[in-house]
């Protein structure tokens, strides 16, 4: 019983890390551009479809195809920001909301049109392998996906702390007026940021495609998941997204194990409500 539970907790932890990477993209975009991406899950689903297409048609392992998919999503994010969202950044929030919900609906129906209603899953050759770590059984796919998610999150944090572009983006987030005064190209940096957030989504989508099946209806569900994670962790906080993902991943497992498996989703919302009541800024968000 204890070993089974420990196995489940490890599973939840590893899956949660991949969820974190997806939510990180949402957090980065909101933290800098101050736009809430309501098409976040739909973009993740598109990345999953891209991974599935590369795997099916070119036999490319999602781990290998990940940089390509991240690049593709970077381009999508960049174009979305420059072509659509830029015009709405200074407008009332409800207009941004409507714009991005419209984009999300187009993505869902576009996926339905192109890929059909069926679920598409990827079965990598090592898809059924497990590692024995003492008495624990660790799923190889989940482990690889979690390591990749952690590595990408680490690289992202290094990018924001060590590179000039990263520092410039942080400057925009911290003091927009100051950034404009010293001559930073804010529009360009916003587009790069949205692209980076989307690239996170692309990477997360490639990893998720090995763990769960994708279908057009996956998008809204993933958007909701990303929102829960960033709100629990703290909107705009990269560390918070990481912590939120792990917390939701593990809590869903515990809820399923001790209560009823069909209550897993409900438990995430219960945590969300609890956090909103007790600590509205999230676990690692800054109080305003």
């Amino acid at each position, binding site marked *: 019983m204890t070993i089974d539970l420990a196995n*489940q907790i490890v599973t939840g932890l590893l899956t949660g890390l991949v969820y974190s990477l997806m939510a990180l993209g949402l957090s980065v975009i909101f933290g800098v551009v101050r736009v809430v991406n309501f098409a976040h899950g739909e973009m993740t689903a598109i990345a999953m479809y891209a991974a599935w297409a590369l795997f099916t048609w070119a036999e490319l392992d999602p781990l290998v195809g990940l940089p390509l998919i991240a690049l593709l999503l970077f381009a999508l994010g960049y174009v979305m920001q420059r072509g659509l969202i830029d015009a709405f950044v200074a407008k009332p929030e409800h207009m941004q909301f409507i714009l991005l919900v419209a984009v999300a609906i187009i993505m869902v129906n576009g996926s339905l049109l192109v890929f059909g209603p069926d679920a598409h899953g990827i079965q990598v050759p090592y898809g059924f392998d497990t590692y024995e770590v003492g008495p624990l059984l660790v799923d190889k796919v989940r482990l690889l996906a979690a390591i990749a998610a952690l590595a990408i999150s680490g690289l992202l944090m290094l990018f924001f702390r060590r590179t000039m572009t990263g520092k410039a983006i942080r400057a925009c987030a911290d003091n927009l007026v100051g950034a404009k005064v010293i001559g930073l190209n804010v529009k360009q940096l916003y587009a790069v940021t949205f692209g980076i957030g989307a690239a996170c989504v692309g990477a997360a989508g490639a990893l998720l495609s090995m763990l769960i*099946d994708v279908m057009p*209806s996956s998008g809204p569900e993933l958007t909701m998941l990303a929102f829960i994670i960033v709100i629990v962790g703290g909107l705009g906080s990269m560390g918070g997204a990481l912590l939120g993902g792990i917390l939701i991943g593990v809590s869903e497992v515990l809820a399923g194990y001790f209560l009823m498996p069909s209550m897993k989703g409900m438990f995430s919302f219960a945590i969300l409500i609890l956090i909103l009541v007790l600590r509205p800024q999230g676990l690692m968000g800054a109080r305003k």
Partner: protein
Amino acid sequence: MSGHSSPMVNRRGFLAAGAAGAAALGLGGRVGPLHAAEPLKVGLLLPMSGGLAREGQSCKRGADVTPGLLADMGMPVQLMIADTETNIDTARTRAEKLIADGAQVLIGAFDSAHTLAVAQVCEQRGVPLVINIAAAPNITEQGFKTVFRNFPTAPKLVTEGLALMKDVFKITGTTPTKAVFLHNNDTFGTAMAGAVNKLFPTLDMPFPLVETIAYDGAARDLAVEVGKAKATGADLVLLVPHGDDCIRVIREMVKQRFEPKAVVSPGSPGMYETQFYKTLGKYSDYCMTNLPWINPKTAMSQALLKAFTKAYPDALFEMNIGYTFEAILIAADAARRAGSNDPKAILAALPATNIAEHVMIGGPIVFDAKGQNTNTRSATIQNFGGKPLVVLPSDVAEAKPVFPAPGWQQRG
């Protein structure tokens, strides 16, 4: 089941078989002309998109090849196909639209909840509904006058499904010690769970059911559900999935090295479908499903197989195709006996249905006072090399049952 080795039957053979069936129908009323002037307008409601799209598309493939075969039997039909989008409200509105557009009989609607909604529309409009697939017992228990079901109820599916398990244990000489029951929590899964929990204690099963685990079929993954099932120590998994969820369950069982003697479904879709075989490969083998199935040994099923394989060489010939064909056959047969395509005349003819020659395993298609065909009969099918074969009942079996199944890692 594509790739049968049984002798192939051509359309002439099918016509002969149909004629034999039609002759038997004579007792229900007068037999109409061999080629009716006007084809019967059949409104077919299926979930061709949304969560049950795969099953709906499968039914549609069965429907696509049916008009040609029925025309050979002098029962011309014109199909009017509508997509319920796996949505109850859409099913209801599409049923209204089909009737408004002239459908004289409705067929459908695969999902029990959708079928109930459609049944209400049919009852209000006085248009007959012939159910191809839907198992919830209340569909035929609430006194509808226009509803006829050629598919077993969930309790019958479960009773026969569990009884067939005992036959498998008897034949193979191995009996499991305890079982865990995993089921999807949608309308169908809940109805099946209700039936299992109610009937299990009455059927003298040789193993206890140690735990029942309901899961959300739309859940992102089912690791915790499978982990919980593994923790029970059960050596038999009873599984009632309703779509892709069975793939996720088996995948997790392999990963978590949960190796019961068998995974058996007491009457549900999923484990005999193309996607299941394609995705899981060798891990899809040896899974058993106890459910109504196409009789591989009748002339009519062979003719249907031939027409189906010609139209869809890569698709699996399975239950959805057979039941959809039979539902249309029932409607066309009633219209032929009535000598009219008028819904009222067809309604009057349907209770006297008696079709001896058909494609599914079981006795003649007849309806009781509630509109339920009581002669349906389940079979045990087991997966071998990526296709389902009938292993029980012995008189129609194509292979012998393998139980216990080889371990996940012992498969080639």
